[in-house]
């Protein structure tokens, strides 16, 4: 009877392995996205610098853009920050910030110190929007098309490789699709 207890560690371990195996199929940087090809979930949140300005999904429409989830408590966000700056300044990529579960003053300071690559920053202190989006951890970057539909999610740091191989082609295609869509009614 006592020997049965000795199997407990083994069983616990088997459970952990099954868990790992379940998660393994999700390539971490392309985590399954429940919201893929669905509109950005509804939200009503303040802007980081300007709490009075109310932001809604309507603010994420108009052109294809990146939505970058970041926080001052996230070491990797600091790593990717210079690259986001480069994208915003040199390539003029529209990037919207989603400041996730963070402190307003700390976040403002961060952007003052490291410069601000964002068009505007959604301040999501409670993490509500993050929860609805299914944010796994910061940093994450979403590709959103002109109609405000989520097309892709990248988990982890955005760098040269990710930009060149994934995000840039995707944005280019979306831009072209958008241009066609706009032209169509006229033609």
């Amino acid at each position: 009877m006592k020997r049965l207890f000795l199997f407990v560690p083994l069983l616990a371990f088997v459970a952990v392995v099954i868990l790992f195996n379940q998660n393994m199929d999700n390539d971490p940087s392309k985590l399954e996205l429940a919201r893929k090809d669905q509109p950005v979930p509804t939200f009503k949140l303040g802007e980081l610098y300007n709490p009075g300005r109310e932001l809604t999904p309507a603010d994420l429409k108009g052109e294809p853009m990146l939505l970058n989830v970041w926080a001052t408590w996230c070491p990797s966000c600091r790593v990717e920050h210079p690259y986001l700056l480069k994208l915003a300044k040199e390539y003029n990529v529209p990037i919207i910030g989603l400041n996730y579960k963070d402190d307003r003053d700390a976040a403002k300071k961060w952007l003052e110190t490291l410069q601000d690559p964002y068009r505007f920053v959604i301040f999501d202190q409670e993490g509500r929007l993050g929860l609805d989006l299914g944010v796994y951890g910061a940093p994450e970057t979403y590709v959103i098309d002109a109609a405000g539909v989520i097309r892709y999610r990248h988990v982890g740091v955005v760098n040269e490789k990710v930009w060149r191989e994934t995000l840039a082609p995707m944005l280019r295609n979306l831009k072209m699709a958008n241009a066609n869509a706009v032209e169509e009614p006229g033609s």
Partner: protein
Amino acid sequence: MIAELGHFALILSFCFAILLAFVPITGAWIGDRLWMRLSRPLAGAQFLMAIVAFAALTASFLRDDFSVRYVAGHSNSLLPWYYKFSAVWGGHEGSLLLWALILTGWTAAVAKFSKQLPLEMVARVLGVMGMISIGFMLFILMTSNPFLRYLPNSPQDGADLNPLLQDFGLIVHPPMLYMGYVGFSVAFAFAVAALMGGRLDAAWARWSRPWTTVAWAFLTLGIALGSWWAYYELGWGGWWFWDPVENASFMPWLAGTALIHSLAATEKRGVFKSWTVLLAIFAFSLSLLGTFLVRSGILTSVHAFAADPERGRFVLMMLGVVIGGSLLLYALRAPVVKSRIGFSETSREVFLLVNNIILVVAMLTVLIGTLAPLVAEWMDKEISVGAPYFNLMFSLLVPLLVIVMGVGMYSHWKDTKAAQLLGPVPMFLVISAVTSVVIPWMYGEIHLMAVIGVFIAVWLFAATLRDAWLKSASSQGRMRGWLRTSRSYKGMVLGHLGLAVTIVGATMVSQYTVERDVRLAPGQSVELSGFTFRFDEETQRRGPNFIGDRATVSILDSDGDVLHVLHPEKRRYQVSGNIMTEAGIDPGLFRDLYVSLGESLEDESWTMRVQYKPFVRWLWLGGVFMAWGGFLAVADRRYRIKLKRKLSTAEAMDSSDAQAQPRGDADALGGRQA
């Protein structure tokens, strides 16, 4: 050519690993002494070939052979030679090769320093280590070969080493950490060998104890180095982030700490045998798990430089075989007979058991916190486990652990009189209570966490020092008496003081750090905690592979005298385009002054973060003490060769006797040398 040589040597090393894994163990099974004797030369040959492979990769780096894919990805001709050298383990493939080198090195060390062990045991231990080796080398050869080439179109120059890794701390951090991780494979191999042979006794614990202590000491240093590196290199003055990869190194440390304590009980009293074996399996399993978590990219983190599901699957398979196999063996073979060795509720055995329970709960706390995102995702829920959870749990567990430590230190094996245990308690209470109010009061505000932290640290200091005072009593004077205590006792004292020092550091720096983000033009200054930081000028400088903006910041005391001149720097690495901050730090035993550069603004002014960090050095100093204590304990007389010879004859005579041996020589936990 050199790379091919290395590749070939690695394959040879792999072949020796296969032989090592099967021949001696089969020999032990069928009782063939010749086959068992092959284990030592095979272990040596395996190590030699691993050295050749590692040297070949190092040579490829030093010679800028960018036709080797791994070199091209992690080096650059502009890199100074010492970073070319450390770049060998700057990426996934090379760090695995380092892992394999260290594993074969530990195997060879066991082969060399195991003269006192019965041949059967040597054969089994080395065989188990050979099996682990097979797994790792297969992993390298199949999924992560560092010797592959770009041919015929090889690049002219390399992509450069990640600038975060171009740093002294990162040259030594991984080898130390791996020495610890892989070192636990020895304890693991001893445990599995004992289970195989059905010989789970005090002798087993005695043999694996020094190996475990050394591995633990290396791991302690590795973790401390990692924390120190994060502090000065990541540029915002943090020292621990509960990042999955940090947790991955912390879990084996907690299990290993429990293990070195339970090994003491098993060695001295023959108790907790099954538990100790399980801990030995845990410590190494958690090391493997750590490797897995980093390599598979299953959890995202700053460290995840090699996220690749293919590799993750391989490591998962290996985990399944190594951990699953050993736990199965454990379930089938661990002794379940209740030990006949009795002890009372106030015995040292019980205190060590409580220590073990707290440490294992702490380990599980970290494990659960680290894996929670996976479980949550699996159940389609979103939860986030962050620093607040870990901080809360540890601010409960650590005080509990330390309070019990202070009392348990005065316990004896078998039984202790309550008066002896509780006698000094009022004194400790008074000293700790007074200091824990006075010190926070000196720093201005009295925070609850500061009071608790200082209280337990002083409690531990007081208990350890009083014990050392009592143990060093001697008719020939205190100094003589102290020198006559055994090295393992001195090691224990040092280790426990180290923990107290670390607790002081962690408490004070978390509670009393003062920081300000300011914007300064040349000539302007800012005041912080009684110091004036004056921004003098900013200059440009060229490093070997970067361009830096270097600021000169003078620190003045209240009289206006310059105490120190700091040079925080912002570097742009030319090849990768990465920007790194190098903080300017004025280190001190009781406080660090820390300046990091933010952004340059139009009018020559800069944003800067200035920080006053009290006692931050104590964090790592404590780690150094702990590791030093570990090394000291292993240098104890009873582990030295001469004594081992004597033991080996005694051992050979009663090798069939599975009973614990009461022994007369030095007692690590209790006192004077015989």
